């Protein structure tokens, strides 16, 4: 008789802790999206001219496009290192369905790639002369929208896991799926900048994210299992 272990294992917390620790160890890679956001925000005034009229018009779109593109940077290694060191196949050993591992990974990915961008987005927006009244809405759209962004990117990363030259394929897979996200999010911020209510856009954005939260994990897990064969 094998003796039952004294403490009930809590895989989700252990996995989340390890994923976050690994992200800290690779902080150069982890902070890349944030550097990218600021690189875009600093370069745009140089390209289109520093006039506040032009900048404040394009600010919502620019911050969001930068956030969207920067999220692609962190995707390539999302599951690849696990595939290469054999951790990925361990996800499915025994009765384990891989859910704890997958959800811990998705959560840690969102925490390390999106939270820094959300935190510093008001500064980026101020640099582009976005009206201060619209800042809370901008942050809100990012909080609502980035989980969907992470999930869509994760699906693309999972699908292209064993594809050679996946770097080129990733954006092609991601961009069509994030178009609604971009339209509703920038629409909400633009309305707020003009002093209108933006709750309709925010509602649609939230619906889009909830749809992704429900369906994407299923698709990502299936794609990962396919790639293990």
């Amino acid at each position: 008789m094998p003796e039952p272990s004294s403490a009930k294992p809590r895989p989700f917390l252990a996995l989340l802790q390890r994923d976050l620790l690994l992200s800290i160890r690779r902080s150069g890679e982890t902070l890349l999206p944030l550097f990218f956001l600021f690189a875009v925000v600093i370069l745009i005034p140089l390209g289109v001219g520093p006039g506040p009229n032009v900048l404040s018009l394009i600010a919502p779109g620019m911050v969001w496009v930068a956030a969207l593109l920067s999220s692609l940077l962190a995707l390539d290694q999302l599951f690849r290192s696990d595939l290469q060191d054999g951790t990925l196949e361990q996800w499915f050993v025994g009765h384990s369905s891989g859910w704890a591992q997958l959800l811990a990974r998705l959560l840690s990915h969102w925490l390390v790639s999106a939270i820094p961008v959300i935190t510093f987005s008001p500064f980026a927006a101020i640099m582009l002369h976005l009206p201060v009244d619209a800042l809370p809405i901008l942050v809100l759209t990012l909080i609502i929208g980035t989980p969907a962004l992470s999930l869509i990117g994760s699906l693309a990363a999972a699908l292209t896991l064993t594809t050679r030259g996946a770097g080129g394929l990733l954006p092609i897979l991601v961009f069509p799926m994030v178009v609604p996200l971009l339209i509703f999010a920038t629409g909400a911020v633009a309305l707020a900048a003009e002093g209108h209510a933006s709750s309709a856009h925010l509602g649609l954005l939230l619906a889009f994210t909830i749809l992704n939260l429900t369906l994407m994990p299923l698709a990502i897990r299936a794609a990962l299992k396919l790639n293990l064969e």
Partner: protein
Amino acid sequence: MVIVNTLLSARQLTFQRHGLNVFQPVDLALNPGHAIVVQGSNGAGKTTLLRLLAGVLEPSDGEVLFEQDPLFHGHLPAVKGDLSCRENLAFERKLGASSVSIASALLQVGLAGLGARPARSLSAGQTRRLGLARLLVRTSPIWLLDEPYASLDADGCHQVDQLIHQHLETGGGVILSTHQQMPDLQHPIQYLAVAPVGNGCPQGASSDA
């Protein structure tokens, strides 16, 4: 329970790639204190069979039965290069720890004193040893070892035999695949030949297995 002792059993297990069976259907039953050695030429499907038994792959037909989750030691070590040896094992312990401490697991696989080293700085053989230490700090009666002797020196191979011996002594069961080094054990060993479909010619098997 009708079958009291069997740790893991497989019935008419097959796996198909591109519509073809990778190997002939496999039946096996692993009992406590027993070892099953899976033999076969390169590409015969040894790795595929072990991954099926571990649950990583879904069988095309047949079934695998086990009550407690097996531990799987594959070709890849399943350790994180950015973490130290000790951190890697500490993580494994959180998934269900055995009574073996991290220090003693490292000692048993011949990595004593290297606990603080990042796993990426280990040599190929040392990484394999760290992968074996994973088995020691976790608790499961079933070990599935895919080529446990690969990359190991004579001393390392002897240590693998000792670990398997200890595990069998305590009522565990081991299924291992190998194509050269044979385990040197006092316990009953069953041999299982994995036969690729198509008269022993490995062309039917996948090229990437």
